[in-house]
């Protein structure tokens, strides 16, 4: 099945923001703004998505071929985008025609190529793209959209996938599917009856008045720009293997580039001091006492969880010292003014699974009704490359005044980089992101703040650079 990544459904509205504020006693001496050394560049592996276009006559087996490619690759980052999603919404007259099967859906004019090109460019740039949803029953674009984010490979399939020159520019591989006209017609009759609620008479009328002439005029000429022409669709094993091998090669190249980029970011980690936006918790005797219990291999799991929860609440409290507040004067029960603070807006959290979930108990002690998104980033066992597998974020996350990003441990910084990139791609401003982690190494912190100098980071304690992720193993007991 194609793996489109769904967006978060509407989470309950956060009414009262519980604020636990310890006003920072020290007066703000002017900060080191603007003195941060040149920003390093990081491109996530999805920044340069490979797009494969599959065109061909209606019923030639484009969708089947796309799905076969996806299942053969067996990777979570391959998404099929059907060009059918980009049908133009019909006005009243066209709509009446459509219901009488007299509207020409098989001409390039029926498609909104401008929107398609826009969305493809967004995806190519590594951004999230909202794909329209088209209803064949109503002949109109639906209110809601589906969002696609971070695929490494995108398969664009549709009769006119190779039609628009602007689209062609974005494609990495162009495939044309070929099948006999009678095969196509019979497939189309079956499908339109079953899936699109049409009757046979209408389908045949459409075929001869639109599909066939359009095929000759617009569809068939696309074979001239195709890289490969695939006859017999999925049965064609040689073609299938060629396509999948090409894609696998592309993915391998990207993975190598990504890891090389991560390595480059290590330069300077040992010589340069950490930025003032990295806050390492004061090692008071309470902190060290709790750290001792947490680090002790002989601590019972019950104690471990208890003390980790206690400590994570302190981390979240400290993180809230880095969010934005506004002045607010209230009147006390004695009828006197007190000049306090209120958060500048909603504060939400994003948990980096699964380690970050260990900090959730602490989070909810501090903000009981905090909206919480999730991302799953896993390191590839073979290559060590972090990979984004899953993400659900609050819909309005770009409007929140602060987003706390929670992860139990940060070693190389690869998954933290990726998680911050995901937030930035969803419109969250860097200065509103506070990464909260129980322990981190200098290298990881350096990498992260080099690429994202405006985020703040709260760290429970500094550790060695290649620390294993033992906290989540202890916390979840597996």
């Amino acid at each position, binding site marked *: 099945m194609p793996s489109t990544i769904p967006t978060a459904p509407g989470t309950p509205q956060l009414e009262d923001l519980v604020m636990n504020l*310890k*006003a*920072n*006693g*020290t*007066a*703000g*001496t*002017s*900060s*080191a*703004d603007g003195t941060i050394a040149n920003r390093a560049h990081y491109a996530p592996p999805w920044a340069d998505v490979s797009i494969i276009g599959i065109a061909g006559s209606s019923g030639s087996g484009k969708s089947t071929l796309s799905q076969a490619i996806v299942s053969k690759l067996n990777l979570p980052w391959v998404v099929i985008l059907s060009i059918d999603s980009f049908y133009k919404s019909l006005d009243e007259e066209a709509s009446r025609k459509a219901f009488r099967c007299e509207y020409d859906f098989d001409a390039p004019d029926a498609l909104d190529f401008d929107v398609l090109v826009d969305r493809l460019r967004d995806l190519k740039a590594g951004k999230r793209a909202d794909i329209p949803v088209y209803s064949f029953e109503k002949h109109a674009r639906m209110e809601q959209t589906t969002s696609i984010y971070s695929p490494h490979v995108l398969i664009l399939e549709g009769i006119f996938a190779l039609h628009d020159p602007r689209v062609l520019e974005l494609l990495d591989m162009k495939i044309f599917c070929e099948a006999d006209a009678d095969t196509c017609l019979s497939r189309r009759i079956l499908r339109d009856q079953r899936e699109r609620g049409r009757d046979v008479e209408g389908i045949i009328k459409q075929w001869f008045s639109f599909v066939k002439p359009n095929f000759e005029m617009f569809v068939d000429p696309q074979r001239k720009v195709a890289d490969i022409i695939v006859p017999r669709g999925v049965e064609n094993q040689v073609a299938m293997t060629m396509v999948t091998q090409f894609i696998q090669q592309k993915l391998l190249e990207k993975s190598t580039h990504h890891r090389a980029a991560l390595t480059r970011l290590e330069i300077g980690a040992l010589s340069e001091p950490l*930025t*003032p*936006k990295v*806050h390492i918790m004061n090692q*008071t*005797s*309470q902190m*060290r*006492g709790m*750290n*001792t*219990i947490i*680090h*002790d*291999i*002989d601590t019972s799991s019950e104690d471990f969880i*208890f003390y980790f929860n*206690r400590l994570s609440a302190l981390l979240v409290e400290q993180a809230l*010292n*880095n969010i*934005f*507040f*506004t*002045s607010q004067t209230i009147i*006390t*029960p*004695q*009828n*006197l*003014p*007190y*000049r*306090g*603070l209120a958060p500048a807006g909603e504060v939400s959290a994003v948990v980096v699974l699964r380690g970050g979930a260990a900090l959730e108990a602490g989070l909810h002690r501090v903000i009981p009704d905090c909206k919480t998104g999730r991302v799953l980033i896993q390191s590839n066992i073979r290559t060590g490359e972090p990979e984004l597998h899953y993400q659900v974020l609050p819909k309005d996350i770009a409007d929140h005044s602060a987003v706390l990003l929670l992860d139990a441990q940060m070693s190389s910084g690869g998954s933290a980089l990726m998680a911050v990139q995901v937030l930035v791609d969803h419109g969250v401003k860097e200065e509103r992101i506070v990464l909260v982690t129980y322990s981190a190494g200098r290298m990881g912190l350096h990498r992260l703040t080099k690429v994202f100098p405006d985020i*703040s980071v709260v760290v429970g304690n500094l550790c*060695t650079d290649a*620390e*294993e992720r*033992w906290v989540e*193993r*202890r916390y979840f007991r597996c």
Partner: protein
Amino acid sequence: MSETEVAPVKCVGPEYRAESQKPTATVSTVVNIDNLTEGLNHLPTVSHTVTTPVGRPYDGLSFQGKIAGVSIMRAGEAMEQGLRDCCRSVRIGKILIQRDEETAQPKLFYDKLPEDIADRWVLLLDPMFATGGSAIMAVDVLKSRGVPEERILFLNVLASPEGIKNFAGKFPKLRVVTAFVDEGLDEKNYIIPGLGDFGDRYYTR
């Protein structure tokens, strides 16, 4: 009631942020008294090295000595949960002190304390520290049970400069841990701007 703000006001926020990005807010009144401390980090510790799950040593510490909580009823009881959230099986004693309507002086009505309290560090709990009248009486009770002054930590949420000075004179070795020092006291000895009657707000409203 004074309309003018006399409490100290400052720009607050992380140091790295520019002054223009920091909102102003009332901050704690500065009281130059040695026994006023800022955090619960005053229990005695010993160094304690452990082995971590990944096999390396961690140079840590552990807390020495036993503790007990003593809450001054009823407002002090509101702080018990906070204590239990940190120390699960902590012993908690209680002291009830009420104002004697005839003499207007605090009067001890009831106390129930752990038997071995003299061997423990005591965290005395009362969220509002105004003149400290009842707290002084509570400390006297603890001292009469053999708890030395230096092993008492008086924990409160809101303190007045007057109360703190009062205490510093009477119990120079006792440490006060407070979240915030408010502006002062009014003619009825309520903390201002304050937050009203704590017990009423926490329990009955």
